[in-house]
């Protein structure tokens, strides 16, 4: 590792890079233990039904089986859920999707576990199911949650600004279109897993691949009736998550199992098929849009009806839809809006958080609406976006005043000067035989933080160790995005210490402090803000304690330097090792909390949202895709891609660019290939053989341009950049497709078969 004093604004290698590439870093999945037991669940395999009988006796008799547990063995509420507690740990009466767990088995090894799971006999009376939003909303539709007052509607909400939809009738131009996007899988490398054991004093320790160790504790405690002081949750670096580990996966199963394992460690590790069958997904959505504008292209009014298919349980469905609704009008000034949303239960796998949380869906719709409008007005699509782009001081489509950094205009301006844009006509002309080329753009944004109603807080803790090292107690999971790297940079910058002197502790509910989930583009922003305050306190403290040893009667001349404090006047120095060994343990620690600011506008809308509306701070991006369409196969190839991204100031250009590129690669998958296909709640794409994510050859060089603004509330002026890039590729590619061959697909993904069909249809209709 290069020895350096980390600095804000400079690329800085991840402190975990060497350990990860050599395989030394331990992910949750790398933990085993002596006398290990394996846990697994029997799943319903029926999309909707009533459990008539559950016979676990044969499984329990199998040699090597330690325990078989059912819902009756769950000591607490047997309900999980972040906002709505509607999901059983182990179903007792009803099953609502094929992945519902009905029994938990502990066995000596994986072979026995598998046999035992197969031996469990579950007799389920099949009930008619609802799989699409339309089916679920029929008046006589079978109901998933009888006790839920809204029937199959988990949440109905609306956002209204100005005169609402009534303003549409005064618009010179009206564009109407309907859009559909499918479920997407997170496809992280490290599938859901963890290990748990009970200590001699009865406390349970859980090491899990989780984005929210502190919230897990509350959820486990509620579901299993176990005091929060009776458990410890540890979250090492994650092998990917993208939202899919924000909530209960293995946690409750493992803690329950540990309570029946006599102190032995229990491991649960979903294989890929189980990840597909029971893991969370991005919501499928159906979106009806009406957009009105003046004849000069000034946006006037928007009416949307958004239907999010949330699957069998609430999880974060309502919150995902809320964010989608908040972004439904794009990063534009539209004075009059009515955005209606229905989040609907169906007997499908559970939809929940995924990078671009609800926003990736609506971006497909609004950004194609913008191109439809541009085409109708014969205006250049970039210019139309620029004309309507939000500026600081404007009201957004929820009526929230943009008081913070608002850089979408700068992103669009940067794209307008990109050679890929300037030379697009020449490039398009050069297409070979049977190829059509097109260039499309999109303007996207993504809110940061939890939004109003849920404190977005982090508590940083930093220590000067007894040995004179700096230890940062990170309370918010690093799932690969690199927030932990930023924390080393912040501590190094403020304390002027070399990277080799700085240590990181990853989230551990016994050692680090509650700092919220790793989500919502908030990790570096919220924890970073807290860490700045804690690091500054520690700096003052170290200098203050050094004064005692340097016999300095004022702190004015003392400076904290790498490994030492120096009296600049006398030239005397004292090493950190001595200061650390002199200080008492409680004195060597500084703790500080930060709370993200919230919107101050008094809004008379969005009352349906329980939490998470509205948001104050957004990151922005303008994307450009150059694609080539094969007229013989319909295949779309992304040849070039450019993104101009604004997320305040950049702490680390390397990790920033990695976030942009990773999001675009994932977004290309969402645009071209990825689609969870189902038939009556049964997966037709249960694995990576049938569910395709892009490979290295499908992702072009990505030119990522950083557009800096200053976010006054951010640590060193930064905002979160993890999500915004996910929202751009699908609409940019869809717009490029229309540009290439005059076909507009309103149903994603833009897979070759759909494209070929649309091409031949447009030919039949006498198109190109």
């Amino acid at each position, binding site marked *: 590792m290069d020895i350096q004093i980390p600095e804000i604004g400079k690329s800085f290698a991840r402190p975990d890079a060497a350990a990860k590439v050599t395989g030394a870093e331990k992910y949750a999945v790398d933990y085993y233990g002596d006398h290990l037991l394996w846990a697994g669940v029997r799943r319903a395999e029926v999309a909707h039904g009533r459990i008539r009988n559950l016979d676990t006796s044969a499984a329990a008799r199998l040699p090597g089986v330690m325990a078989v547990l059912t819902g009756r063995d769950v000591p607490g509420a047997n309900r999980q859920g972040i906002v709505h507690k509607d999901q059983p740990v182990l179903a007792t009466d009803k099953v609502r999707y094929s992945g519902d767990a009905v029994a938990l088995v502990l066995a000596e090894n994986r072979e026995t576990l598998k046999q035992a799971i197969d031996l469990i006999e579950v007799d389920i009376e099949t009930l008619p199911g609802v799989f699409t939003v339309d089916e679920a909303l029929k008046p006589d539709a079978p109901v998933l949650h009888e006790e839920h007052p809204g029937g199959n509607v988990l949440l109905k909400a609306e956002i209204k600004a100005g005169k609402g939809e009534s303003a549409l009738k005064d618009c010179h131009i009206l564009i109407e279109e309907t859009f559909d996007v499918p479920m997407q899988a997170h496809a992280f490398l490290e599938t859901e897993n963890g290990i748990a054991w009970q200590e001699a004093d009865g406390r349970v320790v859980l090491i899990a691949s989780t984005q929210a160790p502190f919230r897990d504790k509350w959820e486990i405690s509620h579901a299993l009736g176990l005091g929060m002081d009776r458990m410890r949750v540890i979250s090492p670096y994650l092998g990917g998550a993208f939202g899919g580990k924000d909530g209960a996966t293995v946690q409750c199963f493992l803690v329950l199992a540990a309570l029946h394992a006599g102190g032995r460690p229990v491991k649960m590790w979903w294989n890929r098929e189980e990840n597909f069958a029971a893991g969370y997904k991005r919501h499928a959505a159906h979106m009806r849009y009406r957009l009105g504008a003046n004849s000069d292209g000034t946006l006037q009014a928007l009416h949307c009806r958004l239907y999010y298919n949330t699957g069998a349980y609430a999880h974060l469905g309502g919150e995902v839809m809320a964010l989608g609704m908040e972004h439904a009008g794009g990063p534009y000034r539209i004075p009059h809006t009515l955005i209606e949303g229905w989040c609907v239960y169906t007997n499908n796998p559970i939809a929940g958080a995924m990078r671009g949380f609800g926003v990736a869906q609506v971006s497909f719709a609004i950004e194609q609406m913008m191109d439809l409008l541009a085409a109708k007005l014969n205006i250049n699509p970039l210019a139309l976006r620029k004309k309507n782009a939000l500026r600081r001081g404007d009201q957004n489509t929820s009526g929230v005043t943009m008081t913070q950094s608002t850089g979408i205009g700068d992103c669009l301006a940067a794209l307008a000067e990109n050679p890929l844009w300037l030379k697009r006509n020449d490039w398009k002309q050069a297409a*070979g*035989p*049977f*190829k059509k080329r097109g260039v499309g753009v999109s303007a996207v944004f993504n809110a940061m933080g939890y939004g109003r109603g849920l404190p977005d807080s982090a508590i940083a803790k930093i220590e000067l160790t007894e040995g004179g090292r700096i230890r940062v107690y990170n309370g918010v999971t690093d799932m690969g995005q690199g927030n932990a790297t930023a924390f080393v940079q912040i501590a190094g910058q403020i304390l002027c210490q070399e990277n080799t002197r700085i240590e990181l502790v990853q989230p551990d509910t016994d050692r680090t402090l509650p700092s919220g989930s790793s989500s919502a583009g908030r990790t570096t922003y919220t924890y970073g803000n807290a860490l700045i305050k804690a690091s500054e306190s520690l700096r003052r403290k170290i200098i203050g304690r050094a004064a005692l040893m340097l016999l300095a009667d004022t702190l004015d001349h003392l400076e904290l330097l790498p490994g030492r404090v120096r009296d600049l006047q006398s030239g005397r120095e004292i090493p950190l090792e001595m200061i650390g060994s002199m200080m008492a343990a409680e004195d060597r620690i500084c703790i500080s909390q930060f709370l993200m600011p919230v919107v101050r506008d008094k809004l008379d809308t969005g009352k349906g949202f329980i939490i998470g509306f509205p948001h104050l701070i957004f990151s922005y991006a303008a994307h450009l895709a150059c694609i*080539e369409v094969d007229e*013989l*196969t319909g*295949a779309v*190839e992304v040849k070039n891609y450019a993104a101009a991204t604004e997320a305040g100031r950049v702490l680390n250009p390397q990790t920033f660019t990695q976030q942009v590129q990773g999001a675009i690669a994932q977004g290309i998958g969402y645009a*071209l*290939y990825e689609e969870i*296909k189902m038939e009556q709640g049964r997966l*037709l*794409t249960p694995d990576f*053989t*049938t569910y*395709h994510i*892009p*490979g*290295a*050859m*499908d992702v072009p060089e990505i030119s990522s341009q950083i557009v800096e603004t200053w976010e006054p509330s951010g640590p060193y002026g930064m905002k979160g950049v993890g999500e915004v890039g996910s929202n751009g590729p699908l609409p940019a590619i869809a717009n490029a497709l229309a540009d290439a061959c005059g076909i507009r697909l309103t149903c994603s993904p833009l*897979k*070759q*078969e759909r494209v*070929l*069909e649309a091409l*031949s249809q447009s030919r039949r209709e006498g198109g190109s």
Partner: protein
Amino acid sequence: MRQVRLPQTLADLWSLLNKDPTALIFSGGTDLFVKMRADKVAASTMIGLERLAALRDIREDNGDIRIGACATHENILRHPLIAAHLPVLVQALRTLGSPPIRTMGTIGGNICTASPAGDTLPPLYVLRAEVEIASSKGSRSVPIPDFIAGPGQIRLAAGEIVTGVRVKKPAEFNLHHFEKVGQRKSMSCAVAGMAALLRVTPSGAIEACRLAWGSVGPTVMTDAGIENFLTGKILSPDTLSAAARQVTRMVMPIDDVRATADYRRTVSGNLLLRLSGMENPTIELKRQSPSEGM
């Protein structure tokens, strides 16, 4: 406990096979291990062929080219003999799986898996490959269409293995072409694929042609009628379109999660049109992969 045996000589192999005729044979394991993980096959003994040098050989033999069953895709791809004489096979191999799969997977495994989507199969059909088979009792060889009986079905008796494939150098053809339509550019099972060998005169007349389609029927599809129709005609979009219409009637695709039968049918015909972009066959011969020129 499962036993894995890795014989060093053919004699050892025959004795192992005689002892346990139910043993499962594997080469690279890239098909077999996937099936084992899904509990589709099981056996107490497995016999790996990777140590049998005689089966890995790629060489000229009496003017023919012989590829050992255990030659990996990567070895075949890189072999000068193959590059010089069998560009159609090279083009297909470049689309097969990914570098790790090509490094482990073998041509013998691809043939014996007999998937309708096996990427080496359309080239081997147009090359009129002969499959070499041996057992402790002797050896025989059969044309590949007679060896592959249906999806996943091969005509191999108990105790027999495939030792290699043999093809005549296709000297009479100056245009080699393979194209696969997958759902992405690598690690993708073919939705449709076509191999073509043509002899085209400088003025564009087709003097000879052989065509084969993968993934659009129970086994690789060929049709002498279509080949005859094209022979003697000019390689033009009109000719190819007329032939493409016949192709869409000839193929027998199915609907599955990857694509509909309709799409496969249309694309099978369309793939033929690609040839019309290839007026200068000598250049095509040098070209290594259809994607490189893009």
